[in-house]
């Protein structure tokens, strides 16, 4: 009940914001060619639907594959860092932070030069922007295991591997989900930058094509779709987390869901 209630309130706020936007343009606050009112964006969403859809599929594939690659690599990386203890972590952690300081709009064209115009440079860019949050949250989950629980396992003659498998790995899963939820939201932005650097399809590409032709309503429609896509991914991950890890959901409440 409360879930539905909250959804309605968010929708109400959105409707009010769109209403203000519509009124502002209708009352001559801005040239509709520069700032199209919401009803024009909505009609662009409808009339250009096949064009938007085919380009959306391209971007969606990039984002989903990129996130999958990032999540897999980040999860393994976090585990390796955790298991190596004090040897690997000081050596690799600064590099991980450095990976976040790379200005994506600058590195993206360089990656296109190197890896071509296919999907590969897009995956690299998306993985680059989403990798870090997943590593950090997974590592936090692994490190949050009670030291007493490890001691308990040792009195049960558990091997290092057994402790990892039965205690640490399950503890890390909520962190993986949290990291992935943070990552999907920025992954979409990464995809757009990667498409701008060199591509012939995708919503980021379509946006770039639409703007010089003053098809601003279509450009806004692309923005709306990308934003809705990121929100949908976030929601799907929250749902998947609740189904896969109900115990974590009960414990933590819905801080990040």
């Amino acid at each position: 009940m409360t879930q539905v209630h909250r959804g309605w309130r968010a929708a109400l706020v959105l409707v009010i914001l769109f209403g203000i936007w519509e009124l502002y343009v209708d009352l001559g606050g801005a040239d509709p060619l520069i700032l199209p009112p919401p009803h024009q964006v909505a009609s662009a969403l409808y009339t250009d639907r096949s064009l938007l859809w085919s380009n959306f599929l391209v971007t969606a594939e990039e984002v989903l594959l990129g996130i999958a690659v990032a999540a897999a690599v980040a999860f393994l990386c976090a585990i390796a860092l955790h298991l190596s203890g004090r040897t690997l972590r000081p050596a690799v952690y600064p590099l991980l932070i450095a990976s976040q300081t790379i200005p994506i709009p600058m590195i993206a064209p360089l990656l296109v030069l190197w890896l071509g115009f296919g999907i590969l440079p897009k995956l690299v860019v998306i993985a680059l922007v989403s990798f870090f949050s997943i590593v950090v949250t997974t590592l936090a989950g692994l490190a949050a295991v009670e030291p007493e629980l490890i001691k308990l396992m040792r009195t049960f003659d558990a091997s290092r591997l057994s402790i990892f498998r039965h205690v640490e790995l399950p503890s890390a899963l909520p962190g993986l989900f949290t990291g992935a939820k943070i990552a999907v939201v920025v992954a979409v932005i990464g995809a757009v930058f990667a498409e701008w650097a060199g591509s012939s399809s995708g919503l980021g590409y379509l946006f770039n094509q639409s703007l010089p032709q003053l098809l601003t309503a279509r450009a806004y429609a692309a923005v709306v779709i990308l934003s809705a896509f990121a929100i949908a991914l976030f929601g799907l991950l929250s749902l998947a987390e609740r189904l896969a890890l109900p115990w974590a959901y009960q414990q933590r409440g819905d801080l990040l869901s």
Partner: protein
Amino acid sequence: MIEAPEKEPRDVQSPGGVAVEGVARSFRTRRGVVQALDGMTLRAAPREVVAVVGPSGCGKTTLLELICGLQPPEAGTISAPGAALMPQRDLLLPWASALDNASLALRARGVSRDEARRQAAPWLERFGLGGFERARPAELSGGMRQRVSFLRTLLAGKPVLALDEPFASLDAITRHEMQGWLAHVLASEPRTVVLVTHDVEEAVVLADRVVVMSPRPGRSVAELEVRLPRPRHATDLAVVELREQAFRALGVER
């Protein structure tokens, strides 16, 4: 009946007994080195329940970790045939069912999931947890969680059980129930038990012998034999008498 740690021949050499002789152990904290134990002596014959009571921070948990072999003593000797720990907080795995939590020690040794469940299932029934096999810890009461935790330690199959204030986190009524329950279980499943507690009454009700520790650095200052028939009740005159003796040994004016 208050005696110094005695020298009388007790069957501590045969398998299953615990002998802690003049043990010292310190640990490092941010504020320097803390001497947790110094000159700690304790003996438990096979199948004997020995309670260790002492003021907070007297090194009781350190003592159990030494007996479990989690850390070596800096001085003195420890001989224990293998001990499984029961921590103060239940530390059940929140994602695992009661059955899977109880069989964790079996899984830790490499027993397959199905086999571990098959072995643990009848015990849950015996421990009054029948019907809760698939319940996660969040769905269990404090007393039930503690029972699962004890079962998990018992199923490790070690000759010695090291119980670290097992009922300290429970409310008074549940704690009382659980003490009766533990006495009952140990009567049917005798093990060598080192029970650390700050609850003197609990020590006298459950143990064959009570070792009293000094404040930090912890060492044994007195030993009380509890030669009383079971089941014992906190209100039994003999129990009350021993309890008062233990308090005196702890230096508590009553």
